[in-house]
């Protein structure tokens, strides 16, 4: 019973990820692609969680938090590049 539900959920999340990959490839502007990549990261978190339910293990719980943190840092870095042109400023003008 649980395995069937998990399998269906994995299929639905995979379909959603394919839709996001379409947006990454097709997306007319760069911010579209950045947002799509961020959402792919979050979908990856869901896929890892579902697979760790399917395999009946808790060895992957660190991976979930790790992907969340890395997706956040990556998205922030990309947005800062789009906004200011530099990722790491030498000195803040204030």
């Amino acid at each position, binding site marked *: 019973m649980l395995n069937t539900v998990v399998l269906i959920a994995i299929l639905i999340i995979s379909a959603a990820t394919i839709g996001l990959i379409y947006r990454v490839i097709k997306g007319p502007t760069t911010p579209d692609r950045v947002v799509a990549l961020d959402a792919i990261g979050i979908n990856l978190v869901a896929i890892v969680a579902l697979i760790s339910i399917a395999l009946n293990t808790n*060895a992957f719980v*660190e991976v979930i938090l790790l992907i969340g943190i890395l997706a956040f*840092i990556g998205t*922030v870095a990309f947005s800062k590049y789009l906004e200011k042109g530099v*990722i*790491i*400023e*030498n000195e*803040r003008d204030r």
Partner: protein
Amino acid sequence: MKTNDIILQTATKVVLFIIVLFSVHIFFAGHYTPGGGFVGGLLTSGAIVLLLLAFDMKTVSKILPVNYIHMIAVGLLFSIGTGAGALLFNVPFLTHAFGHVELPVLGDTSLHTATLFDLGVFLVVVGVTMTIIQTIGEDE
């Protein structure tokens, strides 16, 4: 146009401690569960990178006055020291020792010298990553 990233800076101040705590957890959990010095070091440098993104190079070097090249040297010293320490006890190089120790607060704790080796790996990974990122970041 002058940009103001107060949301990013405030979020960084909260999230940074969660990332650092998680990296410390992953470092110490490496003996029995997935993790260890390499992932922990990468996650710590990820936290410092987030600090670099939200603030600037000068502020971060004021918050963390660390010379990362010296950090690499200290890490290598830790690793080779735990390896060479085995030679004092007339056993082969890199032989590790472990034992149960009764600590005042923590109680019965299993301590292993492989943790000190892992601490060396941690320091080297943080030092190398931050040296690369700072060197690339500070050219004008």
